[in-house]
């Protein structure tokens, strides 16, 4: 029996996620390569080695950024 879905904001958009999802699992779910994406959880950077052990909680705000073209 799994728990109830949680609500998080990912890149400004509300999303429902299963409980106890790690940030690494979130990246995989979104088909993002953790080597080129930087993750900010509630305005704190989560370094790559910590992605697997960091669980997303109800109400969290996640930002997923990468490099794009610019001058």
């Amino acid at each position, binding site marked *: 029996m799994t728990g109830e879905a949680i609500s998080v904001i990912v*890149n400004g958009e509300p999303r429902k996620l299963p409980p106890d999802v790690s940030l690494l699992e979130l990246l995989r779910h*979104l088909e993002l390569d953790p080597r080129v994406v*930087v993750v900010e959880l509630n305005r704190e*950077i989560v370094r790559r080695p910590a992605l697997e052990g960091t669980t997303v909680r109800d109400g969290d705000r996640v930002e997923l950024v990468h*490099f*794009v*073209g*610019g*001058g």
Partner: protein
Amino acid sequence: MTSTLSATDFLTVGGRSFTSRLIVGTGKYPDNETMVRAHAASGAEVVTVAVRRVDLDRKNRAGILYHIDPERYFMLANTAGCYTAEDAVRYARLAREAGFNEFIKLEVIGDEETLFPDVAGLLAATKTLVAEGFQVMAYTNEDLITALRLEDAGAAAVMPLASPIGSGLGLLNPYAIRTIKRRLSVPVIVDAGVGTASDACVTMEQGVDGILMNTAIATADRPVEMAHAMQLAVEAGRRAYLAGRMPRREIAVPSSPTQGMLD
């Protein structure tokens, strides 16, 4: 090149040395293939990139790292689009976490129409980032006092504008740029405003250490050709500066002998 100038004349910023004095952007190209070829034609070793949210709909692979080889190019992240010191610091930290280096092209914009820098925010962000170990390359205006304050704050390079970002108006205030270069010890790299090759050449003739440009190449009718023109112009301007130009005179001086004329 037939001369060995570039083998000895390095651009050194924050302990890193580069043979090219031209830094190019990665924005606004018609397509990625053109960008890749333009970068190669420019001879640049440093390219700038911006930090943005991943597009989760992923209609295309927008990440620039799918197109630029970090083994070949030194990635200089910017804080473009930031209007406060706090935002710029946040973007800089994210950029560093992306994992290439501790360099940041720091922009704190103060006005949407001109994209002129907010110099108070710029100074504050520079101090914060320098304390965190960043090599800060600060985009600023052509004000000498601000440039001096940025150097005092520990900036690795000061980057005065030639004219507004994306304007292509060229070097509007050569005197100010020359003065900044004369008074600062850290590298002075002109950032923004160059429109065509002659602008780049004149800018380098002021003695500055380098130029960063994006729009002039990316939005030219033929970006690859313009990229190469810019490489030549930067090189020509640098060589002319080192060669030392003749003094300006208000009257003509004949180039041919005045003696030996026929009666």
